[in-house]
């Protein structure tokens, strides 16, 4: 029998157990962002009057990827999203500090044209908000005010391609002169996405784009988001964890105005490093 040699193996095993424990600490495997950075926030703080809503937030948004921002109500995720195209500027008491860049350029540079910034960083809101105009004019509005086209034929083409990219063309091509508000909720939301695409943005921000939609319309939008990722960088705020898990490549978890954890979506939802993240995504008391 080889029983004697087994005894001597005990010590070796203890050593191996110790070694394996050293080899698998969770922190060291935390994923770092990979790929070109489209937008980046450094030490971003936001104040509404005296009240601070964001505390030194750092986040890098990768090109041609979907980044989802999740967290409980009031955690600052929408505030951060609105910083990315200076939507907070319209609130008088709001003050933003820190550095936010788009392709390395400071977007809070006083010399920068905010209207042009918002054309490059488009936004889609929770409730579909088409203009009370025709479907055609909803899309043509942005290109017209930004002077993106020179003649009618070019504008027609841009309207068509925008509606095609938003997956709406087939449904509306025969009624472009009808009012945008006459479409269904899901179609209206895709119209808003088409409107955002028409100004040829680099980044599309979405603030709970599906929360007012039924599951089928939601699936259509999610399919669209996945498709748009090839040409655009997308940041989405969502209350649906399942949606974040389905559509995004990276996820940032906000809590009380801070980013608690950020990483690859699959890691965040299968093996979060932080207890607060885990408690939130599994629906536990924080």
């Amino acid at each position, binding site marked *: *029998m*080889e*029983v004697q*040699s*087994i005894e001597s*193996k005990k010590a070796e*095993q203890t050593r*191996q*157990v110790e*070694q*394996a*424990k050293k*080899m*698998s600490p*969770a922190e060291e*495997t935390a994923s770092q962002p990979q790929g070109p950075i489209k937008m980046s926030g450094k030490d971003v703080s936001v104040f509404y009057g005296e009240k601070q809503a964001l505390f030194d937030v750092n986040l890098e948004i990768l090109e041609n990827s979907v980044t989802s921002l999740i967290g409980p109500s009031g955690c600052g995720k929408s505030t951060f999203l609105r910083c990315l195209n200076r939507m907070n500027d319209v609130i008088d008491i709001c003050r933003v500090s820190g550095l936010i860049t788009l392709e390395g350029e400071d977007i809070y540079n006083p010399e920068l044209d905010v209207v042009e910034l918002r054309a490059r960083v488009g936004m889609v809101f929770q409730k579909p908000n088409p203009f009370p105009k025709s479907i055609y004019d909803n899309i043509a509005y942005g290109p017209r005010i930004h002077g993106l086209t020179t003649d009618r034929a070019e504008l027609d083409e841009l309207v068509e391609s925008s509606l095609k990219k938003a997956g709406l063309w087939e449904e509306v091509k025969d009624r472009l002169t009808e009012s945008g508000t006459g479409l269904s909720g899901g179609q209206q939301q895709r119209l808003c996405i088409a409107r955002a695409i028409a100004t040829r943005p680099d980044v599309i921000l979405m603030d709970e784009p599906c929360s007012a939609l039924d599951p089928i319309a939601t699936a259509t939008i999610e399919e669209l988001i996945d498709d748009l990722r090839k040409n655009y960088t997308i940041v989405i705020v969502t209350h649906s*964890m*399942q949606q974040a*898990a389905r559509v995004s490549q990276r996820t940032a978890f906000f809590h009380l105005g801070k980013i608690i954890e950020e990483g690859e979506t699959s890691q965040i*939802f*299968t*093996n*979060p490093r932080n*207890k607060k*993240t*885990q*408690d939130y*995504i*599994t*629906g*536990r*008391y*924080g």
Partner: protein
Amino acid sequence: MSSTEHIVTSYEGELESLDKKIAQMGGLTENLVGQAVDALRLRDADLASHVIEDDVHIDQLEREIEDQAISMIARRQPMALDLRQIMAAVKITSDLERIGDLGKNIAKRVLSIHHEKQPSQLVHGMRSMQSLALAQLKNVLDAYTERNTEKALSVWYADEEIDAIYNSLFRELLTYMMEDPRNIGLCTHLLFCAKNMERIGDHTTNIAETVHYLVLGSEIAAERPKGDKTTKILVEPGDVENDS
């Protein structure tokens, strides 16, 4: 990293019940293997028959756990630790079911060989293998209930010992068969019993890996020691004379 309770209490209750069922199935399996081993040692056909009947309960629990896991995935869309716990339950339950089958197979063989006299040396080797395999199974089930990765890792490494005993038993059994062809029937059954114990050890290490994944969310970052060398062992007639 857990302990906080779900806001939805029924979800918490389902996770607890899943845990309880695994513990129950683990207890039944441990008991069944222990009895199969006793039946082999004591050449007790009655006990062996009991073991064969008892395996039904393990199979039944496996189905219950699987059904519950599937229903929870569909209704709760589990995330993070919860997701890992449900996946771990499915994996562990299938390993336990296999362990139960292997125990049952030992019991079936007892029915064929219980009237034969077993050489005392062989019985000794079998016994140390059995007690090791049983201890491993017990430890890994403890590691699961305690969510203890250290214990799971120890089990994972200790499987090598079972393999080592299996290797020497394999050699010995072959030698007996060569010495006297009348031993072949008995020895073949014993060889399968030993192989079953070795397989039980393998399923036990699977469970250890699952426990590690459940707790830390990662695979064990090391190469598993592979101890079963019997695929390369061939005992020639000359070896028998040299050995004795």
